[in-house]
């Protein structure tokens, strides 16, 4: 089934198996926890922002979840490093558009870069929350300097 292949492309399977930037970041100055009560997915995002430049120096995540949520978190961390907070927010919006847009719409895959791997998610509305959890948690971490919890059921 084509859609399924797209959802679980090699990239996602690979990030699921070998998640990048996995683990805690003790030196972080932004942190949030995310929870998807429907499937029990749990994630923590740790971000170290250079307060002078406003740039994300380092970002890590940990947690348990399905392949989509784990790969999404992993890919997200690889995209965030070196970005400013503003750029991170833009990336979030772009991501959000990719996973929630109408699957039949002609998405400009070339400009999406690495985000293009998330196109397959649109075909499976039940899985959008899985893909989004890390991203919402990341946004929450940036918005709050303290530890906060986000739940997909409030999104």
């Amino acid at each position, binding site marked *: *089934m084509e*859609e*399924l292949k797209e*959802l*679980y492309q090699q990239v996602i*399977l690979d990030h*699921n198996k070998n998640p990048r930037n996995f683990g805690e970041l003790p030196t972080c100055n932004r942190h949030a926890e995310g929870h998807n009560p*429907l*499937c*029990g*997915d*749990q994630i923590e995002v740790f971000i170290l922002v250079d307060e002078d430049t406003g740039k994300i120096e380092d970002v890590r995540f940990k947690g*348990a*979840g*399905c*392949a*989509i*949520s*784990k790969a999404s978190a992993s890919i997200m961390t690889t995209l965030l490093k070196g970005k400013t907070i503003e750029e991170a927010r833009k990336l979030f919006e772009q991501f959000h558009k990719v996973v929630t847009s109408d699957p039949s719409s002609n998405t400009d895959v070339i400009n999406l870069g690495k985000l293009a791997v998330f196109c397959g998610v649109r075909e*499976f509305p*039940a*899985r959008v929350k*899985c893909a989004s959890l890390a991203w919402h948690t990341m946004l929450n971490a940036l918005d709050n300097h303290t530890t906060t919890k986000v739940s997909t059921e409030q999104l």
Partner: protein
Amino acid sequence: MSNIDERLLEIRQDFPVLNRLVYGKPLVYLDNAATTQKPKCVISAISDYYLNYNSNIHRGVHRLSQEATDEYEKSRKIIKEFINANNTNEIIFTRGTTEGINLVAHSFVRPRLSKGDEILITYMEHHSNIVPWQIVCEETGAKLVVAPINDAGELIFEEFEKLLTERVKFVSVVYVSNSLGTINPIEEIIKKAHSKGIPVLIDAAQSIQHMKIDVRRLDCDFLAFSGHKIYGPTGIGVLYGKDEHLDKMRPYQGGGDMIKSVSFVRTIYNDLPYKFEAGTPNIEGAIGLGKAIEYVNQIGFDFIIEHENQLLEYAQEKLSEIDGLKIIGTASRKASVVSFVLENVHPHDVGTMLDVDGVAVRTGHHCTEPIMRRFGVPATTRASFAFYNTKQEIDILANSIQKVIKMFS
């Protein structure tokens, strides 16, 4: 072809949805513990009500209202006979199991609770048999006590007995666990509690569709179930209560139908069962449920039990052959529910991949988070069987699981 196979073919014709395709593949519906499919006779009973005699009940003198009232009350009688209650006053229509448990928590248990009292449940309860008790405990200072289970997912009866102290004022237990399939030793639980004068509620949401339940033989004080899990519509359920209890209980909700007379000085509550049925009820639901139970009677529990046991055995055998698959819930007495986890593949991914093969299963914590924690898994994949399922469908499930494993290896 064996007798069962022939019978099955006929039965499957009663469920039109079983003929549909999902992603171009025949639907394999294995999510019956979440809700069962509805036979044609239930669907037509509901449309017949709307097409021919839709009207409110217990209020009009006109013909339609009389017909609707008769059908509504006929369902109550069917249910009374189905569970062998003493009389129809003991059959309260609710929205479902959840509302039944909340009704008992609010109207029966809460007024009897003081600080330091205890309510005893088990580790394998559905959230709907946990949270209502937490609410009354919070309000009264009582304590919720939880009897443990073993690694097979069975109640540890000695521990349950030990927890059944004089502080316990109420016991509320699930008959069949929705996430593990475990059948609890409900007769012994009731006997033990009654020997200490403690009333018992049975959550029959996952047992009513699988086995003959006789409330008088069980001697339970209350029993709650949902229509939609026994081939009836959603939004309707039943609370059975011994009338000696129901009689003394205060109403759950106030409004129309539950009163005899109202003035601003004094309101006289209606007799049973109407005291607990405030407002216009789910008339189509009650009628549909009555029809569903007639249908189940017609199929017969002899067939249901024999066939579902075969499905369970076959599924456990087939799934156990799969490398890296672990069945969660291996009690010696089980209903036709198989929960499992795969090494390295999250249940959510399993669910999506089975879905595109047309196989509908439930993934997640099944509203039983404490059980998930007890077994150290975030979630499981659950296949739950009804009497219309076939061994071929279990083969499709097993093949589909093999494909998942291959993709993730």
